[in-house]
């Protein structure tokens, strides 16, 4: 008897409201003010009416003077519209890291390094009170909604030392970061006694953009101006274009964001129910469609698959910086009398932010600029077989790492990791040298578990993968979790962490663990409410230590490696080693 299929409620667009406290009165108020006042509800599709967008995808937030709204470097998924009051955005020089809740970058000095020799004597998770002393520059308090707000203590001084610019009612900020999942570019804090902001989460912003031309053009323009130009310049595909051509391409490029749900929370639920399947993911390009343009993935991941039998067979996954559809368009460009359709289907995995270069632009500007040897060769006539013949698609990931591994990685979303801990079970003698090395570099506290899902001889241990798309970083109230550098390691500053568990709950891989901290005698520390203080901990890729990740260096048999799984090069090398 086949097992009964698990029946799970299909996740709806608005199962989880952004702010349950939004009332109809609030929505009415919003509809009366710009820019919503000029939007006509008829432009909005029936599934996502304007009213409902405002109701479910926005929230009214209040900030007092000095309270930090967004931090530079934070990952956020919301844009903000100022309803009342004023905020200030910090221009250069940026606020010092301590005010932002970050820990100071840099490696441990010689004394601290040698002092680790005595780390085995420390009780687990012990902190000295001195170490936990927070920077006097910021304080934290809870507001009436039980939200934690971090505020600048000495606001006049900050205003004095840093150049700031004021933003008032009607200004919008944060939209680029919300849509493209790029880190925030500046720190913004409230400057009037009470500032009232409308926080719009990215799904709402996307739907508003879709249906309102003016908003879309505005955001497009902002996006092109600020976020696109330098990125295109760095893309290899466009490196032979002249400045004017590049500007033209920038003008005509389209961008889109896919994903119907906050993929971390929902993903976990679905994964546990066992119903994560490609067919459920939103389609970007369908196999057999006319190739509309080259898809460049800017953030997030997309799955490349092909019909196989009655299902879809995953061939590869692509991430930031990779493109899709170039072969077909190049073929059509070279052999216009034998055009081909899209050979594969592209689906968004979780959240995906894309740039689409229209075919027209490709044919007019980009493809002619490529030298002969960089132009992809024409595709040989499609063979009507179920198998992908060896050599037919030399880039096929399946050939390189095997179907089982590919499915394993994609189903568990491990390709997100830039430093995934891969353990070769054929070589691992279970000696725990790696865990002990991690402990000795972290005050006698290991920061990972030498255990995890495995496929064949490859085990993905439960250590922070330092994802390309760090979902954990969304929503930290104090800025404790941050990136050490642009696209660098994700680090939690224990000093400013308040133990709210936002990051731990977000992480789809359970890589973040909350620990109750102790003092140097080993007694559990209590807060003033007499509850134990807990902090979020995870692997920090030994960012403070000399020599790189201690786990990898400590394995005597070469069984452990921190691997970048965004593309398959490292993994292919590893599997063939």
């Amino acid at each position: 008897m086949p097992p009964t299929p698990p029946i799970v409620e299909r996740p709806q667009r608005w199962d989880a409201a952004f702010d349950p406290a939004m009332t109809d009165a609030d929505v009415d108020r919003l509809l009366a003010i710009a820019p919503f006042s000029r939007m006509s509800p008829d432009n909005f599709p029936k599934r996502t009416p304007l009213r409902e967008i405002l109701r479910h995808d926005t929230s009214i937030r209040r900030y007092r003077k000095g309270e930090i709204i967004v931090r530079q470097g934070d990952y956020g998924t919301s844009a903000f519209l100022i309803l009342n009051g004023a905020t200030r955005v910090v221009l250069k020089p940026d606020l010092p890291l301590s005010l932002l809740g970050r820990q100071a970058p840099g490696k441990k000095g010689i004394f601290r390094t040698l002092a680790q020799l005595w780390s085995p004597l420390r009780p687990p998770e012990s902190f000295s009170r001195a170490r936990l002393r927070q920077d006097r520059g910021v304080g934290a308090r809870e507001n009436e909604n039980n939200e934690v707000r971090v505020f600048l203590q000495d606001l006049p001084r900050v205003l004095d030392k840093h150049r700031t610019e004021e933003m008032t009612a009607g200004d919008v900020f944060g939209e680029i970061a919300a849509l493209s999942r790029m880190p925030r570019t500046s720190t913004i804090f409230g400057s009037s006694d009470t500032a009232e902001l409308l926080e719009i989460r990215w799904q709402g912003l996307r739907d508003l953009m879709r249906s309102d031309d003016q908003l879309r053009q505005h955001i497009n323009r902002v996006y092109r101006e600020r976020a696109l130009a330098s990125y295109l310049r760095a893309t290899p595909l466009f490196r032979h274009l002249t400045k004017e051509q590049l500007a033209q391409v920038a003008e005509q490029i389209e961008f889109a964001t896919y994903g119907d749900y906050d993929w971390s929370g929902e993903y976990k639920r679905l994964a546990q129910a066992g119903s994560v399947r490609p067919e459920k993911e939103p389609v970007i390009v369908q196999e057999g469609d006319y190739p509309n343009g080259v898809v460049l993935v800017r953030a997030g991941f997309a799955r490349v698959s092909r019909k196989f039998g009655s299902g879809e067979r995953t061939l590869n996954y692509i991430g930031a910086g990779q493109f899709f559809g170039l072969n077909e368009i190049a073929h059509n460009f070279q052999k216009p009398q034998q055009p081909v359709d899209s050979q594969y289907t592209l689906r968004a995995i979780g959240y995906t932010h894309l740039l689409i270069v229209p075919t027209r632009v490709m044919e007019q500007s980009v493809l002619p600029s490529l030298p002969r040897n960089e132009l992809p060769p024409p595709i040989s006539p499609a063979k009507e077989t179920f198998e992908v013949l060896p050599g037919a698609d030399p880039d096929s990931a399946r050939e390189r790492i095997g179907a089982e591994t590919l499915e394993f990685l994609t189903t568990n979303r491990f390709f997100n990791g830039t430093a995934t801990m891969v353990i070769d079970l054929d070589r691992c003698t279970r000696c725990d040298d790696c865990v002990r090395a991690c402990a000795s570099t972290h005050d006698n506290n290991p920061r990972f578990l030498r255990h995890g899902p495995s496929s064949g001889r490859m085990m993905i241990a439960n250590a922070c993968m330092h994802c390309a798309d760090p979902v954990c970083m969304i929503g930290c109230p104090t800025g404790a979790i941050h990136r050490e550098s642009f696209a660098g390691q994700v680090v939690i500053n224990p000093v400013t962490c308040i133990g709210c568990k936002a990051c731990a709950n977000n992480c789809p891989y359970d890589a973040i663990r909350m620990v109750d901290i102790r003092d140097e005698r080993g007694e559990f520390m209590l807060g003033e409410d007499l509850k134990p203080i807990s902090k979020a901990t995870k692997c920090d890729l030994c960012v403070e230590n000399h020599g790189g990740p201690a786990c990898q260096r400590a394995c005597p048999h070469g069984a452990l490696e921190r691997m970048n799984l965004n593309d398959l090069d490292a993994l292919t090398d590893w599997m063939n080693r």
Partner: protein
Amino acid sequence: MSEQLPAPDFDSQSYERPNQKWICGHAAEGKPCRLGPDQGGHCRASSECAPVLEIKPGETKGRWRCTRPGGACETGPLPDGKCGRPISKCSPVATLRTRRGQLTRGVVAATAAVLLIMLGGPWRGKFINPGKLSTPHSGEAFAKFHAGRNGDQSCGACHTAGALGPSGMIFAALHSSPGPFAIKELIEAKAGEMTALDESCQKCHTSHLLHQANVARNISCSFCHQEHRGAGPIAAPTDGHCTLCHGNAETMLASSKIVAASPGGSGIARNFAADHPEFRVQSEKRRDPDTLKFNHVLHLSGETIPKPPNGEKLDCRFCHQPDAAGRYFRSIKFENHCQACHSLQFDPETPDLSLPHGNPDFVSAFLHSLPRQYADFAARSGMARPAEQNQFAQEKLQRLQARVGTGEDFEKRVFFSTATSGPETQVGTVRGAMHALYPGCAYCHEVKADDGGKAHITKPLMMDRWLAHAEFNHAKHSGLSCSQCHQAEKSQMTSDIILPAKQTCAACHSPRGGVADSCATCHIYHTGRTGRFARLKANGQVDAAAGVEPVVIGH
């Protein structure tokens, strides 16, 4: 299948801590307490929380509050501040790694204990002795020599550190020369350097004389003679020890400068068959200076020579008889080896009467008293009456005179005649067969006349040893026949030295031949010590400057 295997099931809330030395005893039941044992392995659990006294502003007494992490318990702490929910103590379990550390410490302690006991106690010598001592250095006799020093045969007899305890040994080690850290000296040390240990050897083995007069430096005793190689005789020095100098061109050249080398004495010899120099007897083509004329070919294969009394053909054994040890041969004496055939008969008709041998004066006296000799001979032959004896003598003398002429001529002929033929004589009882001739003394000897015409016979010089530097034992070569090495059947001249060339010896004494060919087979290092050589040097019979001449011992 996956249900039957251990699953990756782990607590997503806490870490595994293999860095901790002790594990809570309740972990085996799946419920470890969150405190965990302390570093010394003692259970720290007492109760579920540590209550805190909370005095709110305005209060005087305050309340004890429960601080349990999962949420305060309903009953709260007891009034005296203790938690009402104790946790039973466990016996913490040491991790395998901790146990390994304990075992290591135990083994280190045990090793230290064993070493201290063995070194500190009376077993020290037996414990550190790297190998049994040879028989001469063990036992009563040796211990007697050291009665004044160490009563037993312990290390201190030879090693100065042997009498010291462990700390003394460390001190001695640091002060040895070359010291433990003097790597340069260790590398550059010359082989065979005299060392402090050799002084111990020479306490008993005195007068370690030099090998040869022209040895550049003394070689250390312990270099060649290695002790602690097991009971029995002390290990023999190997060829490597000899070739240290004899295989080294510089050393041989240097030594030839100290004392002018004898020809062939400064060559390199590493291996007998390969580059040991040819025997000087052969290479310098020496001749025997003996004045006695002897022809081996004639005696061994000549048709004309008589057979010895036992009727066999004459062979080497008749004249060359081995000494008691069988090592060398007895000197040739006329009376033992020659007289049987060469009987010095001067009167063919009276074969039993012969001249005395050895002193020409006796021969002269004999010849001048021939009548008397004949008469005595008659008396010895049975004629008792003097008249008969005289008559016998007269008759003999008349006939002799008729044959040989005057007495003076006769005497001259007896000494100086070298004629190769003469009247037949009778050898023993054999008549008519080969006769040994006796024309005159000069037939065999070198006879010179002085101014007065008197005969002087040069005393023959027969060498006993031709190879003075080597020891040869004929008894060990008894399986060979004489002619395999000594080509006597080709020697006609006395001046031939009938000794084999090196290659004859090397036919067997070589790796191919299979017989021992080490240096010690024939040579001995301590030549200064053997009295033979020293005596000869002292007597001037050996000219050190010219190298060693062949040796005459007997006569």
